[in-house]
């Protein structure tokens, strides 16, 4: 462990706070519910504590870096900079809420030790992805994330789950292979993979430019699988067979975010945004993102299955991040990067709510949702907030993202983005508003099926508190992230710090 400075242990602690409870949980017998819950929650709280510590430190100009020898000439580096902390903070908070939700969701179901073990490993990998200080460390955790999410996708052990797992792996492992090829090629040219604010390529001779463009394509293809860029998005709707907390994890906290985050890293810290623009790779990337945004929304329109509709909505929404990254200019960057947080908060709310409907009332399809707002008012209120956010209704967080994206596009002289944003918002409204209309304004059926005993919490209204609390909190967070966007502690403020670093160095 050479290069261990005094601050090196904090990044390690963030990783360990999820890893250690996970490893212990694997060894726990199924019936040790209380101990497992204590471990899960203490890990989640510890992670939030260490993340808060580092946030405070980075805000005051400290740096945190852990470095150890890995390969000849390449180290494993965990580093907390402002961008990684944004992702870490998001994942810490959502991990805590998802853990609470999962404990409620999986109550009395089998194989919970295995589930929570892999769940913790999943968060471990996400922390690693977020804090990677170079591309090899990123690759390591990115692939680890693929591996540890697989058991969660196939958790139910049915034939359908197995098939979905195969599809998931076919996409993600192929993507990983492309990424590996790109990274090795890059390393062969540059001899370094360190993330750095201006990128590591601007000094290279122009004869390398064709190769660098090819590498960019490889890297984006590899990352685009997880970020669900069209046409690499096929796994995401299939992976819906997984339990709801897993969907939440895939869509909001870990997997698609790791892909989008990787794209941010590659464009800003490997290529450098100015150099990428000079190479001419940002334009096509923005086009691809725009196509994905519209395509995902169009497909979402046609889905009757609620979770599939949400999945296609994710395809569309995550590409706002890519779009913001690919438009060269500080405002678009702010819009894209802040959407990393905003999309996470809104989408996890929607998936929690969908899970509540399925668990409590057995509702899986949109057409079964008539009048459900009266049966589960709080759940549907949270859902409504999330949906408004997705559409971009002010003051919910999604509006902020779209506003900055639009301003950024105009600033960068890319006015074609505006119709894309408007079209996408209209489509969002077109597939979310009918759901809200059904839920609030149509008559409910004569009786609701009883899927789980909710009497001890809220009588015949709502669902278990462990299932209700997380979506209500995330919905409020999504609201406040928009409402209080100009305060010093909002995600937007932090992202402006990041954008400054990228553009005004």
């Amino acid at each position: 462990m050479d290069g261990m400075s005094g601050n090196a242990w904090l990044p390690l602690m963030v990783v360990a706070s999820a890893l250690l409870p996970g490893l212990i949980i694997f060894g726990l017998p199924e019936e040790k519910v209380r101990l497992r819950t204590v471990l899960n929650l203490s890990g989640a709280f510890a992670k939030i504590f260490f993340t808060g510590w580092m946030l405070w430190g980075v805000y005051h100009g400290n740096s945190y870096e852990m470095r150890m020898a890995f390969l000849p000439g390449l180290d494993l580096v965990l580093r907390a900079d402002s961008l990684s902390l944004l992702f870490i903070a998001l994942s810490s908070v959502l991990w805590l809420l998802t853990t609470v939700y999962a404990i409620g969701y999986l109550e009395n179901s089998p194989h919970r030790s295995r589930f929570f073990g892999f769940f913790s490993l999943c968060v471990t990998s996400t922390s690693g992805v977020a804090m990677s200080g170079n591309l090899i460390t990123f690759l390591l955790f990115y692939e680890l994330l693929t591996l540890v999410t697989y058991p969660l996708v196939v958790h139910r052990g049915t034939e359908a789950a197995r098939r979905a797992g195969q599809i998931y792996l076919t996409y993600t492992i192929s993507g990983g292979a492309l990424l590996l090829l790109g990274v090795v090629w890059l390393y062969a040219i540059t001899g370094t993979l360190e993330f750095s604010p201006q990128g590591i390529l601007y000094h290279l001779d122009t004869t390398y430019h064709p190769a660098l463009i090819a590498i960019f394509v490889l890297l984006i293809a590899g990352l685009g699988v997880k970020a669900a860029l069209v046409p690499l998005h096929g796994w995401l709707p299939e992976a819906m067979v997984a339990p709801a907390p897993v969907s939440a994890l895939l869509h909001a906290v870990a997997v698609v975010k790791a892909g989008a985050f990787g794209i941010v890293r590659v464009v800003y810290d490997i290529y450098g945004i100015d150099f990428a623009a000079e190479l001419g790779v940002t334009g096509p990337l923005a086009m691809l993102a725009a196509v994905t945004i519209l395509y995902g929304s169009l497909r979402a329109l046609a889905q009757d299955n609620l979770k599939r509709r949400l999945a296609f909505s994710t395809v569309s929404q995550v590409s706002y991040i890519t779009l913001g990254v690919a438009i060269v200019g500080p405002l678009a960057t702010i819009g894209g990067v802040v959407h990393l947080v905003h999309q996470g908060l809104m989408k996890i709310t929607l998936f929690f709510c969908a899970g509540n409907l399925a668990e409590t009332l057995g509702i899986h399809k949109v057409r079964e949702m008539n009048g459900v707002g009266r049966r589960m008012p709080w759940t549907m209120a949270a859902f409504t907030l999330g949906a408004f956010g997705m559409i971009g209704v002010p003051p919910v967080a999604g509006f902020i993202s779209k506003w900055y994206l639009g301003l950024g596009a105009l600033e960068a002289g890319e006015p074609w983005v505006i119709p894309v944003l408007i079209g996408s918002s209209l489509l969002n409204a077109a597939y979310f508003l009918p759901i809200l209309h059904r839920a609030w304004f149509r008559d409910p059926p004569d009786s609701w099926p009883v899927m789980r005993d909710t009497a001890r919490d809220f009588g015949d209204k709502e669902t278990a508190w462990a299932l209700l609390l997380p979506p209500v909190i995330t919905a409020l967070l999504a609201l406040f992230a928009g409402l209080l966007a100009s305060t010093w502690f909002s995600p937007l403020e932090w992202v402006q710090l990041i954008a400054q670093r990228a553009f005004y160095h």
Partner: protein
Amino acid sequence: MSSLLAIDWGVIAILLPLAGGTACVLWPALSKPAGLISVTGVVLAIAGLGWRIMENGIYRHAVGGWGAPLGIDLFADGLSLIMLIMTALVGLGISFYARRYFSPRDAVRFWPIWLFLLAALNALFLSADIFNLYVTLEMTGLAAVALTALTGRIDALGGAMRYLLATLLGSLAYLLGVALLYHDAGSVDIATLAQRIQPNAAVWTALGLMSAGLALKTALFPLSFWLPPAHASAPAPVSALLSALVVKASFYILLRLWLELFGDFAQGASMLLGLLGAAAILWGSLQALRQTRIKLLVAYSTVAQIGYLFLIYPLASAGNGIAAGMAAYLAFSHALAKSAMFLAAGNLMLFGGHDRIADLDRAVQRLPLTVAAFALAGVSIMGLPPSSGFVGKWLLLDAAMSQGRWDLAVVMIIGGLLAAGYIFKVLGYAFTQAEVPHDARAVPAGMEWAALLLAIGAILLGFMASEIFALIAVDLVVNADEAGTVWTA
């Protein structure tokens, strides 16, 4: 302390299992304790040898004080040491597995032959001359064949017979090469040969014969026809020994010959070896993907993984000094992962009474440690991080890319994808319920842990690349002084 350093640990590493094996023959009732004690002793002896090499540099010992050319020299440098460590550690894991695996009837046969095999392997990795290598290689082959036939089942006998014929043919071709080299250069000592050898007709013929013979014994495609039936029909611990260690013995000899004797002038032949390696990766992986039984799947995976080892030749010949390190690392990594995988397969067979992949029937819940072992070993075989398989693949890819060998890089990537395909085929079915659910038979915990610990070893080795290369590098300096320029290419 210094008196401990002076001990000839190499001699002990050979004599101890030989004595243990003899004891097993004489007192069959004591087979198991004698076996475990010998193997543990070998681990300690290798540790002593490693310590001695790190303190004093290369180990050389003239047996009986005769010295080359008439006597036999024992010799160990970094490369040999890594091979010895690999043999000792993997052998230890497999021994603890075998302790619970065999019935008393089979145990009295297994232990003596395995100890003789261990002695032969240690002697092979400690040999410095090409004839001594022949003798130890033949001992290794015979012991391995005997182990394959251990159960006496008809498929095992057929597999063993085919294996025996292949291994004998391979050694004869090698021996003919030895004869030609000796005639040409007047020595069998590798270091002496390295100084005297000049490319001429006799040397080229020797190169062809020795390479073909060793490639046959290493099961390099298309000479791999004998491996799947032998490795799949043998009992699980034996399959593990064969795949993890025995094929590495002939590979090691070929590597030595190439690094020290042939590498400088046989670039074309290196390309051919690399080409066959690439073909092995593709063919072996595709075959593995087609299998419906775990043990055959794992056996074909070995065929594919051997292909990666042979990619080192074209990459080394274009001027890469870390070839020895890469080879040692890849071999070690594969030994750990593949032994874990065969042992896990053995557990699954014991648990379900069969090894049909589609009927694994919720093994992940009922045999979690074993499935974990299979999965972790699989991660390394696929070359995904964090594992030694990933590091090995990274080193190869890096070498291939910096030499512009796109073809090899693409083959490696495709090989990784195919490996993921066959590994997750097994893991996927381990989660689901079989059409006809069956009861699970108990698997001793020791057997589950043996598989898991080896698999964890394959993962942890991924963080020890620099240590492995440090061992090889100590040696580079010494060897360059001794034998001229062979290592500095």
